[in-house]
């Protein structure tokens, strides 16, 4: 499931050799994710969707500059950047708390790429590109909480982990960023940013955990 983010290029070389470089983008789940049903038969209790091709920037306030960073975020996103573990939906980005004085900017299409953000945060925050460092998995379904309870020590009860709640936490000893998106079809949606090099391994663990409930697997280019 690869899509080309950089156009195919054909270059005529000295010495008459022809090299064709294809800069295919490959998600870290490219091989492991097989769309369709998995595990127990019947109505799937868990739905897993990998979201492709996103921009992810880590924004970290400089010493004593938290206020300026928040102001810069406000100016750019017309939203208050999260200062506690929350995910804030702006018009075209989600701002996810990732630690004290820092948050992630999740967006699509390059509008809030690290280059685009640089000027606005100059002097108030340090930026680090994480777009390729993570895989993004969205989990929903009747049994999403039951399945996540096998991986996460976080209390996901609706009264505790409401829409917009976020956590920098670990699943199966692997660091993840977890937040609850907007409900879809009346069901809670949990988003997971997983480190890319761990993604395939954690994916298999997720499938093992979900198999008893029946799983439907897919991918999407849309942010949840």
């Amino acid at each position, binding site marked *: 499931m690869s899509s080309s983010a*950089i*156009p195919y*290029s054909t*270059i005529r*070389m000295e*010495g008459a*050799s022809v*090299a*064709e*470089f*294809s*800069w*295919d*983008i*490959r*998600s*870290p789940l*490219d*091989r492991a994710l097989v769309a369709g049903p998995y*595990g*127990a038969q019947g109505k799937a209790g868990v739905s897993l969707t990998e979201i492709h091709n996103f921009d992810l920037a*880590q924004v*970290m306030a*400089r*010493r*004593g500059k938290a206020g300026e960073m928040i102001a810069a975020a406000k100016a750019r996103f017309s939203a208050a950047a999260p200062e506690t573990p929350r995910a804030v939906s702006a018009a075209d980005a989600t701002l996810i708390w990732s630690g004290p004085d*820092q948050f992630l900017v999740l967006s699509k299409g390059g509008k809030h790429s690290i280059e685009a953000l640089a000027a606005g945060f100059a002097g108030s925050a*340090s*930026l*680090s*590109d*994480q*777009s*390729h*460092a*993570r895989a993004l998995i969205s989990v929903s379904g009747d049994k999403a909480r*039951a399945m996540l*309870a*096998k991986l996460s*020590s*976080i*209390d996901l*009860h609706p009264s*505790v982990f409401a829409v917009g709640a976020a956590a920098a936490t670990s699943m*199966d*000893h*692997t660091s993840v960023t977890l937040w609850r998106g907007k409900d879809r079809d009346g069901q809670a949606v949990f988003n997971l940013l997983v*480190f*890319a*090099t*761990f993604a*395939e*391994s*954690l994916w*298999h*663990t997720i499938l*093992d*955990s979900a*198999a*008893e409930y029946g799983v439907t697997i897919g991918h999407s280019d849309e942010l949840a």
Partner: protein
Amino acid sequence: MAGDQANRLTSGGLIDRSTALSFRFDGKNFLGFKGDTLASALVANGVRLVGRSFKYHRPRGILTAGSEEPNALVELRSGARREPNTKATTAELYEGLEAASQNRWPSLNFDVMSVNQLFAPIFVAGFYYKTFMWPAKFWEAIYEPAIRRAAGLGRASGVSDPDHYDKAWAHCDVVIAGSGPAGLAAALAAARSGARVILCEEDFVLGGRLLADGGTIDGLPAAEWVARAVAELEAMPDVRIMTRTSLFGVYDGGTYGAIERVNDHLPVPPEHQVRQRLWRIVAKRCVVAAGAIERPIVFAGNDTPGVMMASAMRSYINRYAAAPARRIALFTNNEDGWRTADTAIAAGLQVAAVIDARADVSPAHRSLASKGGFPVLHGSVSAVEGGKGGVRKISVSLTGGARAEVEADGLAVSGGWNPAVGLTSYHRGRPKWRDDIAAFVPDGAPPGMVAAGAANGAFGLGACLREGFEAGAAAARDAGRSGNIGSMPVADDAAFSLTPLWHVAGKCKAFVDQQHDVTASDVELAQREGFQSVEHLKRYTTLGMATDQGKTSNVAGLAIMAAVSGKSIPETGTTIYRPPYVPVAIGAFAGHHRDENFHATRLTPSHHWAAEQGAIFVDTGLWKRAQWYPRPGEKDWLESVTREVKAVRGGVGFCDVSTLGKIDVHGPDAGAFLDRVYINAFSSLAVGKARYGLMLREDGIVYDDGTTSRLAEDHYFLTTTTAKAGLVMQHLEFCRQVLFPELDVQLTSVSDQWAQFSIAGPKTRDLLKEIIDPAEDLSNDGFPFMGAREVKLRGGLKARLFRISFSGEMAFEISVPARYGEAMARNLMIAGKPFGVTPYGTEALGVMRIEKGHVAGPELNGTTTAGDLGLGKMMSTKKDFVGRVMAGREALTAPSRQVVVGIKPTDKARRLRSGAHIIPKDETPGPENDQGYVTSVCFSPVLDQWIGLGLVERGRERIGEIVLAHDPLRGEDYDVELCNPVFYDPDGGRQRG
């Protein structure tokens, strides 16, 4: 007769008579019903002999009806699913169940090991400490194997467990252990308050003792009240009822361990399902309503099959409609035991006699006796007749000295009740003694935990409900819930009167710990030999160390010890209670983490491409790394690796080095920060340049190394070794947040953001020109050695390019965003095709670094200094840095230290091996002249021989000296020459060229 359920009562019980289940015990076929345990089905079928004891192999029957069972242990299931030591009393019956008795040979009925009973006079507690000492060699050869074979009960399957397990977290306000009257009342009160409640019940049916003892609650029969309570609880969304789940432990911060036997009641777990699940329950409060355990009285012959706890008899009769005997005698020292006489009569069984150790019996019981036509004997049981066939006759010593005999085929015993004090004592709280019930009750429970009902010493039904309800309400309140708790369930309290009786003195063996064959005289012997502390008693006699952890024996044992040592029971005290409350399968604690899933696996961005190339992978920490890329016709790894090295040194090759830790260091003080964490300076590094850095621990020993590049005034890109990536990040965050908080610096791991490749060999630049935008100047002037900057690739993609080399060749490292990593590998192959580009793995990487004398993991072993590694000159004297002061200590700077040198065998055909020690030539190896060892070796294609690095005393002063490589483990001794560790291009012309 097999299969006829001859002892099944014709009516009653919570069994489903419409669902008959067939099962096998010791090869014989039987029938039972859904709702039976293995034990109740065996009782129904008249099977009384179910096991043999640990030491004397005495015949044993079923003593209890619960998880405290010491005797009725079986091997359940067969083949790979065989589970030793399974309590028949808790094993749920299922169609096709197979069980076998254990610790007997050749059969349960005829067990030759029962000859041990003949030696019983010698096999007293601790006998083995006094003998088997001569001759010394005989212990491992003869005595110990014999003891080991005789000991142990069941047999493990011996093959890999085929079932799956997993683990999960649960969160609640109130967790409740036990669903008897106290537990259900607690759950009702807490749930009505609005609390999130988890109710754990180890049984497969809710109700606890109500299932066997009935009663009237709120004017309803107990069963009906239970059904209503459960229905009310089930209707509430924040109540989770977990049957087949034992709360086994309490850990810090309100974390509770529980084991759910998800599918143990089925022959095999359904597809995609686990056998058992380990729960970590996080609860603000815990109500322990785990009930109490009826305790035996120790008397001669008390282990005869057919002797059973009085409450267990009621369970078998009332809950399972199975008669443990037809003519039952009851031996009790308390009022509660009498209920078994009631139950027996109600079930149409005969009561042979009630032997009551108390002086008085209530008028109600007297009238029961006359109605039932059985005598009440005041006294105690002094002997039981009957072997493996079970109880036949009971001798009674009457108060006043006369004797009586009672013919019976079953003896119910009640010595009173011990509250289940395990959970409340796991944080080292010691239970306290209560004289009125002659039992220990919880004290010093962990924070947030409270016991209620029988677990707290309240033995009346009304009291259980009251305590449970109040505890549940209080727990919910403490958790911040304040809903209307409604009315408290009420019931009458039966009178509880008891005259403590622990041990009836007699001549024959009277068992305290039935499973471990610890007798009353063993306890007395222990006292005589000075093992008076209860812990000494336990360890010397093994009392309470069996699979039941002394649930039916500990208190009796210490009571007997108290009596013989002239102390009170509370003075004697208890041993330490330890989790788990019931034994838990090791597989459940492991969950998913076994076999290939033991630990996570990290894959490099080019992993799948490398796999397509046929790469052999090696585990490096959690990573899978390409170790080499074999080609058809290559006879071994060495041939492949040698080819890869030659291809690099003669042309160009590349290797995925994305596993290096990569950290963005941002901020105005980034340079100052790096100056403090590295021994060398980084604030002075020019933008666009890279520098090799070495960091120490605060104790002056080398911690890690790597290159760090300055990409902008306020932005450095730091790399760590693969092994230390996470730890260095932690260390740097410590330096940033704790040691130097005044610095304005930000750290982010970008290890996963970048796919990084090392491209090395004289044709590196040629290859790069193919793939990098022609506008980028890659010449020596335009991109000098140790240069570092962003470049544009053909097609527009941006990459980071670093001119660094660990191979000694002209080399670059190039980083692209990780999702382009696989494309990068493919494109390097395309771009390098004209130059014979060769992918190489970690072995070739290792060969080239050794040839070049670069230190790596084997040299950075946590005991070496910068000086040892030949890098002492890097240590700045102009600044403070982590580890500076301690690095200066006398022994760390001594001239005699072992330092890095090159090593090569004088015989070029000789293979050098890591781990060989270095001994001066012509000396006999010994501790005094053991001067170091070989740390890293490789076959060097350049030198056409094995070479290595080593840490050798004063090594740098001894270049050229011939020494002995001494490798007794592999039976090798050979001469090697100590040499300059830089075997290849010592002037460095190639990498700068």
